């Protein structure tokens, strides 16, 4: 009986190893640093979250989407300002991060846009944001909510 359990455990372990190795190509080496977001008034205004996404592995990784219980439609967006000083915002699509490289989600550029909030983003609270990668892997971050007027974790 004990042997049977051990065999099962071993089989499960092998199965996990066997399946996860080809599926996960790189995203397990992704590290999220300095995540933060701004509080929002009510639930009708979209929120924004910022962070550095670093690929510490040897293979390129592609960020394909976001998931969070906080918002129905979280999406990576990019703000751009043209020569006439006009700012616009559009979905950034898939973003590939080269080995050893990182992308910066920062005010005025790339950001995690949190649309259709399920609950208000209140200063002092945190929420869970999951980054989804093309290899099927996911990386989750706990994002602190700072004040509306905040410029980042340093003030």
């Amino acid at each position, binding site marked *: 009986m004990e042997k049977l359990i051990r065999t099962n455990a071993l089989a499960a372990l092998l199965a996990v190893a066997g399946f996860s190795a080809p599926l996960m190509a790189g995203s397990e080496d992704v590290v999220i640093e300095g995540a933060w977001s701004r509080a929002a008034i009510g639930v009708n205004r979209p929120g924004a979250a910022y962070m550095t996404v670093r690929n510490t592995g040897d293979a390129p990784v592609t960020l394909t989407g976001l998931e969070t219980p906080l918002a129905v439609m979280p999406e990576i967006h990019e703000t751009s300002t043209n020569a006439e*000083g006009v*700012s616009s915002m559009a979905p950034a699509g898939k973003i590939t991060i080269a080995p050893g490289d990182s992308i910066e989600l920062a005010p*005025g550029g790339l950001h995690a846009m949190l649309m259709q909030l399920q609950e208000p983003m209140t200063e002092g609270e945190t929420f869970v944001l999951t980054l989804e990668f093309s290899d099927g892997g996911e990386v989750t971050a706990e994002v602190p909510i700072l004040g*509306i*007027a*905040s410029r980042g974790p340093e003030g």
Partner: protein
Amino acid sequence: MQRRQVFRYGAAGVGALGLTLLVGWWREDGPGAPEPTGQRPLSLSAMDFRLTDHDGNDVGPQTLIGRPSMVFFGFTYCPDVCPTTLSDISGWLDELGEEAKRMNVVFITVDPERDTVDAMAEYVGYFHQAIRGWTGPEQQIARAIDGFRATYEKVAADGDYYTMNHTASVFLFDAKGQFVTMIDYHEPREFAVPKIRRALKEETTGAT
């Protein structure tokens, strides 16, 4: 007969050419010409629009004359650029300290549909207390935008959601309402604060 016909065609040709030239002039140089982009904003005294500030007061460009002014456009449903601009401005005002009290600082919404007086009041309350929020009928917002030679555009997104593209620069005027300069989005603070000081200084130059 043949000659007359040639003359007729000739006259028609000249007429058509004249019309083409007239249409061309109208479109390119005449009243039908598109507004050239990148123009200097008008002086505040030459602008004409009526809005309401976040305390419910009637305001317009004339309200700003007499003190140096810092004016910018945005909307409160903007998750990235606008809070960043407002917090940058709050930082500049903190750095200016007492000097900032001699300035008008105005945030004009380009999204009056969602940015009511109350929405503006709640929003500006999170930033530096010198910042005033102005809103009003769409047609008046359009007149303000026109005076500043700025642009805005409503962009539909998924479902009921929409966003606004808009000029993100901060406009500086002296106490007489003359345009001094603008601070572009992303401009480092070490450039922004001296530019504001220049607008403040032109007030004293103007007074003497």
